[in-house]
């Protein structure tokens, strides 16, 4: 590796001084957060150690089945995470729509990104597949969570507006249009805003990682630009699929608004 500093056990251990400092501060201030800080530090450490070993194993034993399995596991975790994040009550129909749009939107974007933009070979190359798919799935998960929140909230809080529209002869699509548009907008705005600040307000994680590992900054930005566009595409695709199918789950066959 291009002169990268490999951290020794003691070097890494010394970084935990930051956790210790935080623990001292909260203790002194009487903020009861010690347990959370400890648990999250330990969890982060253990999770990353496991991922490190799993990825090392996978890099050495490349196999299309493993790659597909990892993508599957990522998708399932992302979908379950969305269900967990949403506090409002969701119908089974809506949950199915979330899973379907998340799966279809991200898989399409990942395949396009890896096979058309990056052109990886062999197609299942773990070194590219796993981190890039992870970023696409992770960002789409955040986007769709926002979209679900806004859609569910909008359908409930604008119940009277929707019913007034239905009474005037609107189709469910017409009646829900402003809510659907608003949900889509809220879901993609964070991605758009993050592109604006990129490179000036902060250096994105993937680019930072590549630079640290010795990649030329110019190559690093190429990847960063590409992945940002990939993320934008995937977030838009998953969210548009979600809102277009999702609003329908609030109407029954008789085109009546159903909120429970």
């Amino acid at each position, binding site marked *: 590796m291009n002169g990268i500093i490999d951290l020794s056990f003691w070097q890494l251990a010394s970084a935990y001084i930051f956790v210790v400092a935080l623990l001292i501060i909260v203790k002194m201030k009487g903020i009861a957060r010690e347990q959370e800080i400890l648990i999250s530090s330990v969890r982060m450490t253990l999770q990353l150690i496991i991922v490190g070993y799993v990825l090392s194993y996978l890099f050495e034993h490349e196999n299309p089945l493993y790659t597909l399995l990892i993508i599957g596991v990522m998708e399932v975790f992302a979908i379950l995470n969305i269900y967990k994040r949403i506090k409002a009550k969701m119908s089974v129909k809506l949950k199915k729509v979330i899973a379907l749009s998340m799966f279809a939107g991200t898989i399409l974007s990942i395949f396009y990104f890896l096979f058309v933009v990056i052109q990886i070979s062999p197609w299942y190359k773990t070194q590219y597949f796993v981190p890039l798919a992870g970023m696409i799935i992770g960002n789409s998960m955040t986007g769709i969570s926002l979209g679900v929140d806004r859609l569910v909230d909008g359908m409930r809080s604008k119940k009277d507006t929707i019913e007034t529209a239905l*009474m*005037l002869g609107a189709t469910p699509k017409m009646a829900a249009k402003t809510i659907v548009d608003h949900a889509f907008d809220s879901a993609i705005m964070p991605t758009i805003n993050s592109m604006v600040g990129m490179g000036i307000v902060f250096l994105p994680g993937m680019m930072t990682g590549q630079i640290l590992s010795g990649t030329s900054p110019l190559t690093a930005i190429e990847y960063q630009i590409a992945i940002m566009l990939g993320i934008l595409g995937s977030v838009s695709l998953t969210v548009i699929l979600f809102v277009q199918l999702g609003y329908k789950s609030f109407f029954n066959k008789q085109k*009546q608004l159903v909120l429970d």
Partner: protein
Amino acid sequence: MESVFQLRNIRYGDILNIQHMDIPKDKITCIVGESGSGKTTLIKMLNCLISPTEGEILFQEKNISEMDPVDLRRRVVMLGQNPVIFPVTVRDNLSIALRFSEKEPLEEQEMKKYLAMVHLDKNLDQPVENMSGGEKQRLALARVFILNPEVLLLDEPSSALDEETEILIIEETVRYVKHYGKTLIMVTHSKLIAETYGENIIKISKGQFVREGEM
């Protein structure tokens, strides 16, 4: 007498239970009853905004559960008790109604004709946010008139109005309905309105259909 709606063995949970009811075509039917008796539930069913848990409703001899609900709602337009007025202007509210019903947009003169029908002397570009509750109610009524439906379902159309405007509005509604040969089904709390204008009066009590005809 030809019926526009026929209700057969209708039940909606514990709220409504109607064995047999016919609503005449081209007439003014007033639905009366104490609050919580199921009047709104009944009128919402006729608009297919809710469906009965049991029984069937026929609209011009056709079971409404077999009709396209949007098509039905375009022929049987309902004005709810608390209609939402859409942003931003008076014109927007009239044109959005036409758009919802997939009808051709109207000229300014035509739109104003409908505002005059409900005694709303407003500029079409007037923002709705400054309008009083009564003015909004009248705009909502004009929004129903402009759709030219076969049947008008009005749920307490004059609840936000003072007595004088209330009578004025009801009279305009009656004139509109009679002039264009339409059916009006109106929920009202006012015995006076029901007795004066109702050609057919339906009394509901505790979810049951108790009387038809004179109050």
